[in-house]
């Protein structure tokens, strides 16, 4: 196996969260890659920027796993683009990812609070 590229390493770091963000964004309707990245940036008040080198591999992986499906459509600006749509499986996945995320936040918060109390 060749050494893993830098991009892939970052995907792995973000993996769970990026998937969650993409699925959450698609909850409001089909979107193409560019719009998804813009949406995440806008909704995070410009805090989170998704690199294309992570976004597209993530989209293709989600599609391979059957959580999203894709088709070619026209955008409002009348451009051809590949739109991704959440599947039924994807909706379930989103719910479980959200659960996991809130558990994670709660758990990390608890840990941080405990450290704060002692300090």
């Amino acid at each position, binding site marked *: 196996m060749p050494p893993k590229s830098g991009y*892939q390493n970052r995907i792995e770091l973000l993996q769970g969260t990026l998937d969650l963000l993409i699925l959450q964004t698609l909850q409001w309707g089909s979107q193409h890659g560019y719009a998804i990245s813009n949406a995440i940036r806008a909704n995070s008040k410009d805090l989170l920027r998704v690199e294309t*080198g992570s976004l597209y591999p993530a989209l293709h992986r989600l599609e391979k796993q059957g959580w999203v499906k894709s088709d070619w459509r026209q955008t409002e600006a009348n451009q051809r683009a*590949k739109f991704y749509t959440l599947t039924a499986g994807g909706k379930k996945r989103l719910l479980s990812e959200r659960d996991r995320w809130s558990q994670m936040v709660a758990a990390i918060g608890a840990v941080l609070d405990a450290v704060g109390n002692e300090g």
Partner: protein
Amino acid sequence: MFFFKRIRKDSDLEEEIASHLRMAASDSGPDAALREFGNVTLVKEVTREMWGWASWERLWQDLSYSCRVLRKNRAYTLAAVLSLALGIGANTAIFSLIDSVMLESLPVKNPQELVALGDPTATQSMSEGSGGNTRIFSYPFYKLFREQNGVFSGLYAGGRSERLDLQDEAEHPHARFVSDNYFGVLGVAPSQGRAFLPEDREAVVISYDFWQRHFLGAPNIAGRRITINHRDFTIIGVSARGFSGDIVGYQTDLWLPIEAQPEANPGHDYRNEPNTFWLQLMGRLKPGVTLAQVSTVLNTMGTTIIKEQAAKITLPAGLEKIDREKIAVQSGAKGFSRIRHSFEPMLKILMALVALILLISCANVANLQMARAISRSREMGLRLAIGAGRGRLLRQLLTESLVLAAAGGLTAVMFGYWISRLLLQFTARQNRLPIEPHLSGTALLFTGAISVVAALLFGLAPALFGTKGNFVTHLRESKTGRSKGAAQRFEKGLVALQIVLSLILLYGSGLFIRTLQNLEKSNVGYRRENLLVAELDPWAAGYKTLQIDALALNLTSALSAIPGIAYVSFSENGLFSGTESGTENAIEGFTPRSPEDLVNRSDKVGAKYFSTVGIPILAGREIGPQDTANSARIAVIDEAMARFYFGNAQQSIGRHIADPDGKHPMTIVGVVGAAKENGLRDPAARRLYTPFLQSREDDPIGAFHLEIRTSANPGVMEASIRRAIHKVDAALLEPSVEQVQILIEEDLEQEKLIAKLSGFFSILALLLASIGLYGVMSYLTVRRTTEVGVRMALGASRSSVVALLFREAFSMAAIGLVVGAACAFAVGKLTASNLYGVNAFDPLTVAAAAAVICAAAALASWLPARRASRVDPMVALRAE
């Protein structure tokens, strides 16, 4: 499929990214869009990885790269592929023979349900008179057991036929007499016409091959007439294509109903003889019945039937045998076969030989790869430098080995078919192959498997050596062309291994060749040169017991009159004819320790038999014209019998020998030398000779043989002998006339084949090993060019340089020879049962084999050494 999908997905991704860039560009301008996006190629690359095809793609890359590399290095590829094709091809050939003879099931319905009763190797056997045969069965027994057994859904019988003559045909077809349910029980429907019905008499089913061969596949063959032994038969059907009977190694041409046996073999009627054993039985198990149950039924109910039937005719002593020996029962899935039994030792030896050959070819290719690993050091170094992992390189190199092995394997399949065909031709009789050579699925699987094993054997170590270290050492090595110490030791080890293997092969073939020579020279006890044997079947021409005596005497005097014929006599069994008789006797003054002590081989012979054949008379007299049905009953015994029963020849004269119950006494009038009459390996057995003309009514002469001693070349006499016999009685079937010398040589067929093939294989091995040694020596010599230059510049002579390099070669050879000698003796022990007149531990043969190897090694290392010694010192020094 995969590629089209792949191409579509690729262009899809291309467009997706393009549209992203377009949209980004319209928002923030093209430059910013590109900057924002990052490395487009890399994004594509990591996205593609998500498709999960990466490992396939890498394999494809490796494969196409391997093919490119191999195509570029044609000489190397050719040498490696040829070497492998030889090794793998030899294995494929021998394995496919083993597969067809020993492993393959009959091409019938559910062969695993079939059960063979008795001895499945007794395909051409026949035994009359002796009760209690446990190997083959009588027809009356079959009919009763077929009805009563309760364990088979069907049970059929098949038996041998005497020679059959077709009208105007030189070829004698292979025929079997079978019960009417033969094709039904086997579950092979005829391809034309129909199978047998119980009421069929003069009916015959022909094989698909026979139909093609003799009738050129003529349509509507069913209903045609065919003349067999001057009788008319009707062809009722043609067997299924690919079905050549239930005997492996004897391709059946014709099947005849057992009920038609007396018509097809005139003069003989075995149908109602409970004491004529000639049938082999095969049953199809009822569901849920086991082999053990079959054995129980056969050895209780079955033996009871046999004993009841035989008791009317046979003495109780003959029946004891069936109580002592159980009748065997075994799976019939692979059919009956004589050659399965007789070829087995030969096939095992050959398999071992070719396995060694494959090892030698692998060592050769490994050495080629080691040498190439050095020249590829730069490539490997570069690839390591630009970030390839060792695992990736190993995979690439092993893929290359697999491609080589696959090419070798494919070539081998073609080779293998022809080699196995050639081998079968060696064993063919009358131009008929015992089995049709073919490569079954099993054989192809085997070839594939050994190709992969071979690739690992020859590819793994060189790949490991070739990828060891970092790119710095690789790039440095590529400049000096030097291999590391461990790699060098490995190369030398490979050469030593090849020498070990070659020595084993040479020693083995030496033993087999000496075995053959010993057998050829072995004393048969008579003069085999200028001796002919003619076989006659008077019963087929309508003769009865007493008339046969007259016929034998008439033929003797007719043949004696032919110029060039010195003596003529006659006997029942002939020499090396494949027929043999045995009797049980009571011996005057001898107390047996076991029942076998009273069993002797026997023959009935005419006047002057011993002087005709050339068996020396040691005491008393031989059987003469005065010993007729009306004179006193006499016997002549051989030396072995005289020694066993009476101590020596002289003391035997005048003693008496009789039936086990004391009846029919005979006086011994002569003792003759021991003679081998069937097979050279067995020590000459105890043999009892009685006068042909004193044959008893309860043991009449069947077919008999004429022994003819010629003074001229026997080959030219055959035609005039046939003419003379025809003149005596035109009704006699054309006799077979054979030279004893040739019959004896045919008896050595397998030994010859083993000697020839092992000789051939060991020369092949030696050649491969020499090439290996030559390669390694050339390479080592080139490596030492500078050293040689320095030495010569300092005044070393040419011969001392050659000696220096020779020492290196012979250190490898010496290790190989010492280890090889030890292994060779071990291997000799394993083959001891196949040897004759030569010890498994034979220093002379080992010395000869070692000498041959030394000569080859000397030649292989002399050439590179001489080249090195001619190098101009200045050139050599500059080369550094």
